[in-house]
């Protein structure tokens, strides 16, 4: 058994070291790109060490305070930290890439018992940084602090509770990974699950807003004072949360640690509950892992609709080759969870802001009071551009081996860039248009020309963003898995950061023109024409910017064809 663990540890360390050492880069630009990519994990590792030290000290202080029965403010901090860790442990595996089933197949070929494989996988969960950070607090810090305060029995109880909590976390990680693997093993079902997750995660932040009645206003519409708001009874959501709280594992740990000094016997009940939950989760995780091992790879096949020959059509204004590139880019978005996320999540932001607007009812844009619909449509358009970034900022590498197909085809770089720009525009245009139409349908507008102005503003912003996106995609390519919705499907972090800044910069002039026209000149009727003029200038600038970008992409094609 020890030999197996040693082999697994060696393999993980070797994989990590090799990923840092052997870049296989071909030129200086690629070496720079790879170095920037590695910078994130290295910085995270560097930050992890002081964080662990701080948490260790926090643990000792908490343990000592508990032993002395003095202030428990540190225990409150630990309580919320553990709750946060618990949430990250549950949602973390959803955001991480799907585990390599090829690795599982290889393990199955080795003479390793399934239970040992499970233990190796389960202990692998300790490598998640949030789980790792729990150790200095609950396994080391608090028991040491209690022991220093001469509460040895309490220290032993806290140590057992800490280990049980850690066992629970690794069990949850293992269970969540296996369940996700089982759900995604069938690719059709996997796509559906990912789509639900895409909706579910943002809705978690919106739902309480939707379900809880407003506490800001009295029934007569008068705004409540702070004291009046505090005097109100808790909402049904808050009451439900209070009822569930004792059953949350982090609360079980807090109760155990809290009672360990004053009443060791009283600590036995929450400790037994915590240990019981940890055992049940581990048992469920083992059963799920066995199911994964029974059939680690997908056998299903997905079919795609022809949409009445839509994909065979040529986008007006484009050459057949550029059109084929554009429609292929759109299909990539429609057929991958990450692509769908780019098209669905922008709709949630206007919904969220719409709910907030309805509940507060006091939002207005200076100069065009009562045009909340326009503001929502603008938010929808801007978030559509932001949601596009993971695809647009890695527009060549997202094709994986398909990029080589394009390089082997009689497509000029100009056609390739044009096709990509139009394809990305179509991806962003779908949610932006929907947000636009819905906002227009829900809210009345007394300035129809302003809506036209918004279209001009969005066109201008995208025209400037498109060449920047192509350039950043060429300089910072990254191999991605668009089936994942976490970091594994994100563009290169440097490209994402610069892309986000570029998106904001591209909106500065339209926003500035809007501000000057409405707030200073008070000439609403001028705005659409000014924005139309700016859109024309932006398209001209975009054309000029694409000239050096074309040369850049041409010089980088050889490297880009390796990202699959």
């Amino acid at each position, binding site marked *: 058994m020890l030999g197996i663990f040693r082999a697994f540890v060696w393999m993980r360390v070797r994989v990590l070291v090799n990923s840092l050492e052997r870049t296989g880069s*071909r030129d200086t630009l690629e070496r720079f790109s790879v170095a920037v990519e590695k910078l994130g994990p290295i910085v995270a590792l560097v930050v992890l060490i002081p964080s662990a030290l701080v948490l260790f000290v926090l643990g000792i202080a908490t343990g000592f305070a508990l032993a002395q029965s003095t202030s428990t403010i540190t225990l409150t901090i630990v309580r919320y930290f553990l709750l946060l860790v618990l949430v990250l442990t549950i949602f973390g595996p959803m955001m991480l890439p799907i585990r390599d089933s090829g690795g599982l197949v290889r393990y199955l070929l080795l003479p390793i018992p399934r239970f040992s494989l499970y233990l190796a996988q389960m202990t692998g969960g300790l490598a998640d940084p949030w789980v790792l950070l729990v150790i200095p607090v609950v396994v080391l810090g608090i028991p040491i602090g209690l022991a220093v305060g001469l509460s040895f029995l309490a220290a032993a109880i806290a140590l057992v509770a800490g280990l049980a909590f850690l066992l629970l976390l690794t069990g949850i990680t293992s269970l969540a990974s296996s369940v996700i693997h089982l759900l995604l093993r069938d*690719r059709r079902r996997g796509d559906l699950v990912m789509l639900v997750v895409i909706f579910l995660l943002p809705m978690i932040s919106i739902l309480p807003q939707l379900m809880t009645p407003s506490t800001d206003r009295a029934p007569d519409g008068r705004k409540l004072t702070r004291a009046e708001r505090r005097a109100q009874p808790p909402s049904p959501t808050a009451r439900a949360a209070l009822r569930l709280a004792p059953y949350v594992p982090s609360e079980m740990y807090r109760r155990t640690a809290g009672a360990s000094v004053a009443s060791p016997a009283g600590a036995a009940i929450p400790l037994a509950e915590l240990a019981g939950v940890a055992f049940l989760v581990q048992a469920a995780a083992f059963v799920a892992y066995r199911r994964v091992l029974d059939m680690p790879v*997908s056998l*299903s*096949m*997905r*079919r*795609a*609709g*022809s949409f009445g020959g839509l*994909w*065979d059509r*040529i986008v007006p204004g484009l050459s*057949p*080759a550029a*059109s*084929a*590139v554009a429609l*292929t880019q759109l*299909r*990539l978005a429609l*057929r*991958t969870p990450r692509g769908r996320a780019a098209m669905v999540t922008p709709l949630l932001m206007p919904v969220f802001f719409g709910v907030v607007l309805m509940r507060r009812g006091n939002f207005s844009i200076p100069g065009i009071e009562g045009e909340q619909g326009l503001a929502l449509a603008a938010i929808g358009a801007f978030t559509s551009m932001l949601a596009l970034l993971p695809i647009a900022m890695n527009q060549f590498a997202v*094709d*994986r*081996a*398909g990029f*080589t*197909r*394009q*390089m*082997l*085809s*009689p*497509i*000029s770089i100009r056609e390739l860039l044009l096709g990509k720009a139009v394809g990305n525009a179509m991806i962003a245009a779908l949610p932006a248009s929907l947000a636009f139409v819905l906002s227009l349908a829900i809210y009345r507008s007394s300035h129809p020309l302003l809506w036209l102005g918004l279209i001009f503003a969005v066109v201008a912003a995208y025209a400037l963003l498109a060449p920047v996106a192509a350039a950043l995609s060429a300089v910072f390519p990254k191999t991605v898995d*668009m089936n994942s919705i976490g970091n594994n499907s994100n563009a290169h972090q440097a490209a994402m950061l610069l892309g986000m800044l570029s998106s904001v910069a591209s909106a500065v002039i339209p926003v500035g023109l809007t501000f000057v026209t409405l707030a200073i000149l008070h000439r609403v009727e001028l705005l659409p024409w000014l924005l139309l003029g700016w859109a024309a200038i932006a398209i001209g600038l975009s054309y000029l910017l694409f000239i050096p970008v074309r040369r850049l992409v041409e010089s980088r094609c*050889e490297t880009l*064809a390796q990202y*699959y």
Partner: protein
Amino acid sequence: MLTYNPPCMEFAVETHGLARTFGAKRAVDGIDLRVPAGSFYGFLGPNGAGKSTTIKCLTGLLRPSSGSMRILELDPVTAAVEIKRRVGVVPEDLALFDRLTAAETLSFVGQVHGMAPETFKARSADLLSLMDLTSASTTLVADFSHGMKKKLSLAASLLPAPRLLFLDEPFEGIDAVASRQIKELLHSFVARGGTVFLTSHILEIVERLSTHIGVIADGKMVAQGSIEEIRSGAHGHGTLEELFIELVGGERAAADFDWL
């Protein structure tokens, strides 16, 4: 406007001192290829000899470090897109979009070649039928087996009716029935004046199909010509396998592990 006149063409592929280096490693070391137009050219070499790198240079996926090339009498530097119109490639990685179906992949190829929809649809149906992929035509490529992907990549290379085919290990992972049909198809392609440039480790196939052979080892050409010419040059009268081993210096003592 570039002109193209196949009947006068002597070599479909011609290189002079073609080289490609990766850092200190010379993957392709100044090779002079002569692939006669209308020939079936088998390009052989041991693993890591530089076959795939050579194909990547010839198909424009890699820039040569030095040397010159002419493909179908056109210069790849000035007429890259024009060459791609006339050349079909099955590369090492198969170059397929994961999220397109088989039919859509062929439609993509047809569109970028500027073919009329009815033409590429009719040809797609023929090719999918030949490759036994008709029932999987609406399945995403991501769900294909390796053999199915290889057949689809081959279909994609044939769809625009190229004059020159670069095939990197086209028969690896393909079932016997499809393999036989593909061989017949390639034979008739060459008979109609097309040129095939093929790499394969299956020497029996190369011996049966090829009219000409080039052998590369450590990035250098060690032999080139018709099979008969190479046989006479290498003093060998045996099979292609024996000839190949003689050329690349692969004679080693048979392994005898007493622990096995």
